[in-house]
């Protein structure tokens, strides 16, 4: 299994820089350059915030609806049940993120266990 990619340390760092870092960091830097004059509380600010929130929700929804790796084997209903169970636990426990995450993880682990056996 080892060095299946056949990359040296230097080559891999170069790839991380050019193919990984540059295409992600460019958006963060552009945001600073473009957004320097957007004051907090302005209409543009509220719109950008709404877009960011919707984008994040969409990213998360995509991770649940079209998962990768071993999660593909877990039926959608169970993936939704795990998120729903975690969220319900969070709301019922005076907003404990820890208990919410634990409850959701419990459901997904049980689902993984039973779909694999």
């Amino acid at each position, binding site marked *: 299994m080892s060095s299946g990619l056949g990359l040296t340390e230097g080559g891999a760092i170069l790839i*991380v*820089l050019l193919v990984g870092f540059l295409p992600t960091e460019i958006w963060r830097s552009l*945001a600073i350059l473009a957004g320097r004059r957007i004051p907090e509380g302005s209409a543009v600010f509220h719109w950008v915030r709404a*877009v*960011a929130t*919707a984008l994040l*929700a969409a990213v998360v929804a995509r991770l649940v609806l079209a998962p990768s790796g071993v999660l593909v084997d877990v039926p959608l209903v169970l993936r939704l049940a795990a998120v729903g169970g975690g969220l319900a636990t969070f709301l019922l426990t005076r907003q404990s993120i820890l208990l919410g995450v634990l409850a959701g993880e419990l459901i997904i682990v049980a689902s993984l*266990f039973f779909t694999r056996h």
Partner: protein
Amino acid sequence: MPERSTLGWVLVGVRHAVTVPALVLFASYVGYGALLQGVGFPPWASVLSTFLIWALPAQVILVGGLVSQVPLPALALAIGLSSIRFLPMTMSLAPYMRSQRGRLLVDLLCAHYVAMTMWLEGMRLLPPLPAHARIPYMLGLGNFYIASAMSGTIVGYLLASELPPVLAGALLFMTPLSFTIMMVRNAANPTDWLALAAGVLIMPLALGLGGGLDLMIAGVGGGTLAYVGGRLMKRRQEAGR
């Protein structure tokens, strides 16, 4: 709030970062580290990838692309498309992490820390702070988050080339689960709730489009709908008064 030195605010930021979200980051990145070890990615470049890219979805795309030998320019493009969310995220967090004297380099450095966890926690924790405290505080917060993720990468890398499938699945599920909970905790006004609902509901419809276009439609379309909806609700409320 008591008066503190710059270093004092950094330490407050670190202290506030020692929470479940940091633990979730650590766990998620254990899965990433194990993945890298499994495909034979060199160790230093692995840890550096977490520090420099600081976006788990992009990092997973990078590794997956290298394994399936996607041409590097195409891979860079895919990673760029998957990271567009950083534009509105950084723009909306920027007013709370702007250097007092408008030093561009400081602002660019701060922007590097923006990622899902940092955005969600920053939008909640930064606004109540006095302006001079925000940058040292967010650097304490952000550096602790990145350090947690880097530790996770190292631990995963050292642990095993292949995690047991159930554990791998559990770690993989951490991201959508914890972010859903944190987003619900953060939702403070009708626009936030509408944006959450729009993003979640439009996503399945746009899913077939792929190539990052689905996220653009759900994000820009859903966000705009939420913004307009939020304004209309506010206006109606004011008119009814």
